[in-house]
């Protein structure tokens, strides 16, 4: 035996979970929604999505290169941001706008604040809101190739049927319409323990209950309103972003509740037809406070919450 063995403080084993592994799981969970988008809106819609992923990864690599930091693109978080951003854009978005949006998400929201884990708000959400304000194309949603033109369900007179909403064959952002694909991704994330049920369930539940009141207790309409628009993709994939959502169980419940309420207030009483992005953005900013209010009590003590 060689006498040279390592002297290190415990523990000496690790669970094997890694940031890259978690991000890979999120990418896998988004595949059904991406595929559904391609089927519903036509294969060409993959172009903006792929472009967003490539530019997000590219901008992060470039930033690290220029600022002489360790290369972090292997953790796949930039790819997740890119994919989420792409899926939240209408299929008709000009490609150059995708690049500008990615630049905003990665450089302004993420890298300038210190990179992964340091951003105050979700980069994909912030970039989407930025594009909504900056580019008029964002307001013109895409429609399935075979559908007649019309408004998105939330702005339309007539809601599509529950089945249509479930399968996603209606107008909206590339990845937000197919509820079935999003729920499939949700189940995958829950099974892989990447996320917990708290935020998605409370967020969607709050929207449903609020919509019940708004529709005069019409369960079908309330369910339609919950499935339509960006509630599902927002509640499952955007609001559960680790860095910008609370870490405690009760904190997650509060976060979901707040996001659901704000979504409905904006939707039903604001000027925008959709409010998911604004709601999540607002709750992102509240997250440090929510974490402070909901700290776990330390075992056998009265303290630990201060």
């Amino acid at each position, binding site marked *: 035996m060689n006498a040279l063995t*390592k*002297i290190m403080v415990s523990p*000496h*084993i690790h669970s094997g*979970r890694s*940031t890259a592994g978690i991000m890979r799981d999120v990418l896998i969970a988004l595949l059904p929604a991406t595929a559904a988008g391609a089927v519903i809106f036509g294969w060409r819609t993959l172009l903006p999505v792929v472009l967003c992923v490539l530019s997000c990864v590219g901008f992060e690599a470039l930033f690290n290169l220029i600022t002489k930091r360790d290369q972090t693109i292997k953790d796949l978080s930039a790819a997740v941001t890119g994919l989420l951003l792409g899926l939240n854009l209408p299929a008709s978005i000009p490609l150059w706008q995708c690049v500008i949006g990615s630049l905003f998400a990665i450089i302004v929201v993420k890298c300038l604040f210190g990179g992964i884990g340091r951003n105050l708000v979700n980069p994909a959400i912030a970039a989407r809101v930025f594009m909504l304000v900056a580019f008029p194309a964002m307001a013109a949603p895409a429609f399935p190739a075979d559908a007649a033109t019309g408004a998105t369900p939330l702005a339309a007179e007539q809601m599509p049927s529950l089945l249509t909403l479930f399968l996603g064959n209606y107008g909206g952002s590339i990845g937000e319409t197919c509820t079935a694909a999003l729920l499939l991704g949700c189940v995958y994330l829950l099974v892989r323990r990447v996320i917990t049920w708290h935020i998605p369930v409370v967020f969607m539940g709050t929207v449903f209950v609020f919509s019940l009141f708004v529709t005069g207790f019409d369960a079908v309409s309330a369910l339609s309103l919950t499935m339509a628009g960006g509630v599902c993709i927002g509640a499952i994939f955007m609001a559960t972003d*680790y860095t910008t959502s609370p870490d405690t169980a009760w904190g997650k419940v509060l976060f979901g509740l707040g996001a659901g309420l704000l979504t409905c207030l904006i939707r039903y009483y604001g000027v925008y037809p959709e409010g998911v992005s604004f709601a999540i953005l607002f709750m992102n900013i509240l997250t440090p406070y929510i974490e402070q209010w909901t700290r776990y009590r330390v075992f056998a003590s009265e303290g630990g919450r201060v």
Partner: protein
Amino acid sequence: MALYLRGIRTPHRKNTLKQPVVRMEAPGTVTLPMAMHIGAPAIPVVKVGDTVKVGTKIGEANGRISSNIYSSVSGNVKRIEEYLPHNGTAVAAVVIESDGEMTVDPAVCPPTVNNREELIAAIRESGIVGLGGAGFPTHVKLDVEPERIEYLLINGAECEPYVTSDTVTMLTRAEDMRDAILALNRCLGIGKVMIGIENNKKTAIAAMQKMASSITACTVEVKSLPSVYPQGGEKLLIYHTTGRKVSAGKLPIDVGCVVLNCTTLAAIGAYLRTGMPLVEKCVTVDGGAVKNPQNVIVPIGTSMKDLFDFCGGLQVQPDKIVYGGPMMGVTVPGDASMVQKATNAVLALTAKEAKLPKPTACIRCGTCTNTCPFGLAPAAIAGAYERKDTEALKARLVDACMECGCCSFVCPANRPLVQINKLSKQMLKEEQKKEASKS
């Protein structure tokens, strides 16, 4: 918030349970450090050249919190050298060359134990310390007003991966444990005994239930606990068996409990019956580098090299040699360490087994906070440590940390969280010292 399911599911890797327990013959030499316990080192009472036998006292306890040291082989004292244990404070170590005979010292005879004073004196004499790994002198734990002890809790959780020596004790030494329980009941008036065992050790649970049913003098209850690491942590064991909570800085006795490891209990029983002090130890020898992983009953003081050679040698170069389990065990230099009183396992881990990924940036996923059995927030503590913010460290109650390592184990960024907790405690201690010297 239910704390019951907090903690982690580690790999079990309890391979050595399948192998029979073997006894190792006398090694060529044994090295016996005078500090194999918490407290003051013992004082050597032999000189170079002295003849000693198995059970001859070679180190005298120095004060109340200390422990006697006995020779584990028969032979001659070869030299008295300096040994540097992992805590960094050098102590004397007696090196004994074995004559291979293992002759027992004629002075070894069963102690007379009829009352509390005699029992505590006997345990003090026996050199028994906490054998689960801590090494706290057992007589000190028991030396409290008897009416304060409501429960005797036996820790058979053995939640660390690889380690099976406690399970072996429960399977093979139920008689010793029974004798000890009866003596503690008779002399200290302990009426309630609970044995906590993780539910992945069905055979041990059965053996203990059988033993418990043969005792009528007091109630002995076997508690099957979920196999969630760190189930064997003292405070968690107390909570999961009695529902009582020991707050930071308090002792089990403050909630009416005395906790003994099952192997410590067996050692007490064996000593009361035979009078042979603590000279040997059942040790789990495992890890990917060991050719024949198994449980070995080995004289205390046996070198790592002799122990590994006895187990077929090392088939590959180990990356780390660990005393204890991989979650809380201490790495030791392989060429200068030996089996000590509290050594329950010796692991020779290969580079692959002990592979730790490179630390990356915290992603604030909160897994550490949601895993900590005590509800601490390791990531926030790490932030406070980096800022040297001792007020925040105090507010976050870092002193409550039992250093189980769950946070580091689960962290997807492999941040050194429990390691920072340890440093944070040190930082608070130093600050306290500074303030004390000021005033």
